[in-house]
């Protein structure tokens, strides 16, 4: 099976991966895949905005027992992975407490899931930039 030569030099993939983190879909735009970049940007942004409109809570890193650490640190990392969406939200003072209710709960999950989808997009940008896929 023919495969494109793999280019693992950091200078080749790092800008695409960092841009993919900061601006969802940005890595694909940098790599001249605007169609895929646009769909990723739309999906991640829509999921994040829906999370905000459902008044989901943003996680703060918190340690304690193992479960608490995994949930709160993991949730914080998930939020952080949304890049500029997260930074602007925090900068504008969004501070929704974690309250009971299925809508708030879905909102919290949507905010984390947006970040996790962006992680998948970052991995894809890495693979494209390093020549592992088109």
């Amino acid at each position, binding site marked *: 099976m023919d495969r494109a030569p793999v280019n693992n030099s950091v200078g080749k993939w790092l800008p695409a991966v960092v841009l993919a983190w900061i601006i969802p879909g940005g890595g694909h735009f940098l790599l001249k895949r605007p169609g895929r970049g646009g769909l990723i940007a739309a999906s991640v942004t829509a*999921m994040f905005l829906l999370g905000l409109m459902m008044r989901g809570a943003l996680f703060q890193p918190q340690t304690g027992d193992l479960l608490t650490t995994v949930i709160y640190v993991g949730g914080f990392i998930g939020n952080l992975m949304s890049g500029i969406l997260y930074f602007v939200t925090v900068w504008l003072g969004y501070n929704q407490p974690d309250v009971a209710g299925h809508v708030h709960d879905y909102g919290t999950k949507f905010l984390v899931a947006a970040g996790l989808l962006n992680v998948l997009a970052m991995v894809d940008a890495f693979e494209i930039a390093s020549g592992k896929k088109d």
Partner: protein
Amino acid sequence: MPKMNLSNFEAAVLFALFTSVVLGIITKKTDRERVRYAAYCFACFIAAIFGLSWLMYLGHG
């Protein structure tokens, strides 16, 4: 920012839609394969939503 009240079903369908789009984009090589895989993932999500909903309904008694 407007507040949105979605039902469990609406939220799960929206989650399935956006997740399927991203999974389709990142996993396959051609556009045709991407569309097919995204549709397949979405169908699996919907099947899981209905299947697990019925399971919970019947299990609850």
